């Protein structure tokens, strides 16, 4: 029996939803069902006796999955990539601080924990670690919110570590708010300042190192930031460590609050703007780890793109980057939602599966995914989804490429491209609303002969704005709509030609 009060309640919910649907924060993309037709999610079972809170992943040379946990353990897992998964967990090391990065090289596992970078090895061949060689513990670590996230080894064997501030607003201990590089012989080399609460650290397809930044003071939304040597990345609390860094001097100018990134870049010459902004809630709330897809097509049509997990929303997103006038920028795209827990990190398996895992906790943020912890796998089933593959900026517009040919008749209409722009207030206060909104005027559309790309010329590209694309009207030659019609391109620079 459905009672009439029940119907009224439904009506009331529908009403509030409609009233605010234009900016319905917190709503899901609503694409999980469609996504599962291409990228099914497979859960990797965890035995109840294993206190698993995954924070980092690595693939061992013998093909096993390595998992580093918040509790400070490292597990080696055989069979995680089988279908169905048949995992066997082996405890390799324990007793460390929280592990948010693992990287295997030269017979040892290098773990970045909150307190140090440690090279962990097994010297007697029993597959259990017995040496814990500290490469460095020279950054300040004396408060509870002073997170540390690390990268894999770069080409020179360095580990890059992003050091969160002491909370959101202050830097109380040495190099909090900086990114540092730790060399194989244990030297710690400061790279850049201005981070707030960074998460995952890793390279793009050109080997350039980036870190995820969280929304908060001086950060209107989460973003991907280029860890450029000598740069200042936006949050001035960490200015205080320049006198401790040989070879660097404190920037002459501090950014003004209640301003715009575009304006302050002109004042503060060291300021490097975020390369990819992820509009808050629409594209993540607390982005965590990310990984470059170099599976050579095993994971579908998104080779050389970044895949990023989000803790609060339990989703995976994609991002692409390009360097324009010497500055990195790019776009982000929805990819997969409906994961089981708060995603802390991701990794590609040798079979080209995307491993995603994490946890929820009763002591920090609420999370959409309900499981207290989980390791899941996103498999590509070989069917190509109709998606925006990538957006690239040109002198007077954007080149949008797709994974499948477009219906060129639909694609040639300029009203099929809803492009709006906005930016954030660059401010000391927490986060920012979206401000300075404009609607872009499409002056010309030109679809390529193969239908796989379209060039959209705009009357004006708005500098320093995020360009939000909604291409819901486009269809493929097979009449499909895009799985995800939205994408967001961060314009820092406009190509000169």
């Amino acid at each position, binding site marked *: 029996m459905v009672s009439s009060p029940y119907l009224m309640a439904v*009506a009331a919910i529908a009403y509030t939803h409609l009233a605010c649907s234009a900016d319905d924060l917190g709503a899901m993309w609503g694409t999980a069902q469609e996504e599962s037709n291409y990228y099914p999610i497979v859960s990797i079972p965890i035995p109840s006796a294993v206190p698993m809170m995954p924070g980092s992943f690595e693939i061992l040379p013998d093909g096993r999955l390595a998992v580093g946990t918040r509790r400070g353990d490292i597990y080696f897992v055989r069979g995680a990539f089988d279908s169905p998964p048949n995992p066997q967990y082996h405890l390799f090391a324990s007793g460390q601080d929280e592990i948010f990065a693992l990287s295997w090289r030269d017979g040892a596992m290098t773990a970045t924990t909150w307190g140090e970078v440690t090279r962990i090895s097994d010297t007697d061949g029993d597959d259990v670690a017995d040496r814990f060689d*500290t490469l460095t*513990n*020279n950054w300040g670590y004396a408060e509870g919110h002073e997170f540390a996230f690390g990268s894999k080894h770069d080409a020179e064997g360095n580990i890059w570590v992003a050091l969160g501030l002491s909370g*959101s607003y202050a830097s109380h201990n040495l190099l909090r708010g900086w990114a540092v590089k730790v060399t194989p012989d244990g030297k710690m080399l400061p790279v850049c300042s201005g981070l707030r609460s960074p998460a995952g650290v890793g390279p793009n397809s050109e080997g350039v190192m980036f870190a995820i930044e969280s929304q908060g003071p001086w950060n209107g939304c989460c973003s991907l930031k280029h860890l450029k040597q000598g740069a200042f990345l936006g949050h001035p609390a960490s200015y205080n460590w320049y006198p401790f860094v040989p070879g660097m001097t404190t920037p002459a100018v501090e950014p003004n609050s209640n301003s715009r990134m575009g304006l302050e870049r002109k004042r503060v010459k060291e300021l490097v703007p975020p390369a990819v902004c992820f509009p808050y809630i629409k594209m993540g709330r607390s982005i965590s780890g990310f990984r470059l897809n170099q599976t050579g097509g095993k994971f579908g049509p998104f080779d050389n793109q970044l895949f990023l997990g989000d803790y609060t929303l339990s989703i995976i997103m994609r991002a692409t980057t390009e360097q324009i006038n010497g500055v990195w920028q790019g776009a982000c795209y929805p990819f997969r939602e409906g994961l089981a827990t708060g995603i802390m990190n991701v990794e590609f398996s040798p079979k080209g599966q995307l491993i995603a895992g994490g946890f929820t906790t009763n002591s920090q943020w609420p999370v959409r995914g309900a499981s207290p912890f989980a390791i899941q796998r996103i498999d590509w089933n070989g069917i190509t989804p109709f998606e925006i593959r990538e957006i690239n900026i040109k002198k007077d517009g954007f080149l949008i490429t797709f994974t499948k040919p477009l219906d060129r008749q639909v694609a040639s209409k300029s009203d099929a491209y809803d492009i709006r722009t906005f930016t954030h207030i660059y401010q000391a206060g*927490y*986060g920012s609303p979206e401000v300075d909104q404009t609607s872009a005027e499409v002056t010309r559309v030109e679809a390529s002969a193969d239908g796989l790309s379209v060039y959209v010329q705009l009357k004006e590209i708005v500098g320093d704005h995020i360009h939000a694309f909604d291409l819901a009207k486009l269809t493929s030659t097979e009449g499909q709509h895009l799985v995800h019609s939205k994408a967001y391109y961060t314009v820092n620079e406009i190509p000169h030609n």
Partner: protein
Amino acid sequence: MGEWAVLPAASHQKCLANAPAPATVRRDMMRTQQQIPIRARVLRFIPLVAILPFCLLGVVMAEPSVAGLSSGLEPGLKGQVLIEELNCVACHSGDASLATRSKKSPRLAEVGSRINPQYMEAFIGEPHRIKPGTTMPDMLSTMAGDEKRRVANSLTHFLLSLKPGNFSIQAPDTVAVVRGMRLFHSRGCAACHSPRDASAKELLANTSVPLGALDKKYSFKSLSDFLRQPHASRPSGRMPDLRLQGQDIDSITHYLLQDTRVPGGLSYTLYRGQVWEGLDSAKVTAERAGQVKDFALESLGRVEHHSAIQYAGWINVASQGSYTFFLKMNGGSLSVDGKIIIDQAPRDGRGIKDLQGSVDLAPGWRSIQLAYFHTGREPQLACEMAGPQMQRQPIPASMLAVSDQPIPVAEPFQVDPALAAVGREQFSSLGCASCHDDLRVPSKSRLALAQLDASRGCLSKDAGAWPRFDLNAQQLEWIRKALPDAGHLQLSDKQRLDKTLATFNCTACHERSGLGGIAPERNALFTGTQPGLGDQGRLPPPLTDVGAKLQPQWISEVLFHGKRQRQYLEVSMPQFGEANVGNLVELFGKVDELETVAIPEVANVKESKDAGCEMVGTSGLSCIACHEFNGRKSGELAAPDIARVSERLKKNWFNLYLRQPSRFHPTVIMPGYWPGGQSVRPNILGGDAAQQIEAIWIYLEGGAQAKKPAGLSRQSNELSVSDVTEVCRGHCPVGYRGIGVGYPSRISLAFDSDEMALRQLWKGEFANVDIGSFHPRGTDTFAFPQGIPFHRLKTLEDNWPYKGKTNYLFPQDQGYQFRGYHLDATRRPTFLYHYGDIAVEDFFEDVRDDKGNAYFKRTLTFDCPTEPVPFYFRAAAGKKISRRTEREFTIDQLQLRITSEHNGLLREGNLGEVLIPLTPPRGHSTLTLDYQW
């Protein structure tokens, strides 16, 4: 060696280990010294006022400043606000309610104890020059200078004749000033009054309620009394009661009166804590400051051990010549005329020293600064001097002054009864008594509001026998428009509500749609103790739709009884007085309306309540991850307590909010759990959103009796030790880089990898381990103080170095580098670290004595590429320390035995220490010890 090269920075670092760097002390003194002349120059303003009260002082005149006129209040009502704030009804009668709503003038019966008589006289004569922006009209505007001065003087005599005044000023406490500055800006004062820069210059004077020169107006006592009970003298509540603690009020008062100058011998600042680290160490707190007549310690009251006093002042030198200063103290420094003549580091391990130093001085005022450390055994201070025509003697108070410029002494004001009688007459005839109606002085009545001609009198530019307000054109226009209806105003509920909110400047702190909110330039002043809550953790909640949100009883509690929900906001919720804002409770309820949500019928209340409990807990929506529940929090955030939500919130609003939190706060942190009406927990109550929200409400209505939700108490997570050693790392009682080791013999230790030091021993159960942290369990805990293991002491008096809060590069700057550990077959760790180029291995074995008692055998192995400079190893430190032989020591319950060919020595002090002098040979060598307790 993998250390990060740090040398260029080392010069920025004070070496904390070696006691107060004299440079630091000197720098502070220089600062004090420089401040005095600058202040003397700039702030001589009011003594001038006293002498030349009616001269032009270059102060900008300004129209009356009325808070709330800059809000989004409809322009038609702004004139009404002005009519009420200027108390027009005091002279021009209107309806009774207008008189009630209008702002009453300050009560004057006790003004003689409240206001400096000199200020009073100057202000009466020229109110708009003395305090630009005041709403007090100039009543003497048509009088010539001499007459004006006479009238102001007799009015002052009258006001001071009302009650014997006890007005007297006191020197500000510069320590409280620093605290007061923070409080002034964070507690809410600066929401209405202008925020100030470090030199107390007002930054937003044009958009703030003016304060005037408070140091000339108030004494410490009268201003702090006023801040405690602002409504006693200003009953209309425009200046609210911030309900601050007494100490906070005192600090704010010192801050506001920081320019008060009082004659005295010396300024002092008293510090407490680990003063040998230097007075700017994080472990040293400035406690208080003030003025004393001389260097006698007794005048400071009780001085605790481990204090330091910094004196600064000027000494009056009579004749040219060489002067010698004699100090008896444990440590400190003296500088005279800018030269350091005595400098002695404090040492806790010894008593006092006799020190002396000489300097050539020319006649006149010479600066003198003394930093004194109340440390060591039987601390004391004596400060004497001798010189030409001056025998050795304690420096007399008569030679000392806090400033090299004369500071005028305020003469007590003598009331002349004849002048007071004249003043009383003028108080009546000039019209003062119309507004200041608490003195029972008769007042004249004038034309009723309704009969006024808006182009004449106070509202004209003409001078005449009427009050002069200096209204600006915009204000005049507002008043002229409002005047015809002002006496018998008919307003809608919304207009009444808006007008009240504007009058009391509620929108200075609270956003309300249509009226405005926090000005962007003030936004950053609002701070909170829970940064994780984002803007909601620092900004007062919006008032948009608040009448549809809150139960009227709760609004009353907040407005009139100081109840508050968001303890993490630094800003106070001020109290404006029920008589003044009592209408808000009803008006909010009448004006604010939101659509009504249909509440579903609940078939099974118990099932619903259980589902509510599940959703609130960690297995459901985990509300308690952020929200407190019955005063308990499960995590680090402390968002508002939800257990008593039904006492505060209206159910309808609760429904609307849960469905879409972002509707009510654009940057809300709380996620929507029913996005698009779909529950994220489809398995509870069939995923029915309406039933789920109702279930949470029903459950929370249980209040304090509600069943505890899952996850509220954190589970213990014991790590027990069986036949192999266990290690855990992270935050623990010894620091953030702690390493806990539990051994199979049921003894455990904690090692600090920041300082490479053994820090704790215990017996029995090992530890509870959480993510990123562990907490030792067990019994018989023995804790060692902070400090590195090895050091080259220059003398045995030097303090042993440890990592303070701000010696950021320590201990790497002492040559240390942690290198990790390796495990043996039973997984016992050997810690690895470098001390300079010496590679150290530090191994603890759990062994048993012949009685079966477990203890630690420690083996330190040194690998030296060259023969090192000798150094000390601090094997143990603590209280109750004694030596049995050169190799056997007792520290409280701990027995320390050196079992290799090394001898220890005992160093006494606040903490005793066992130091082992070491000169390890080139190559490999070992030191072994037993720790048994």
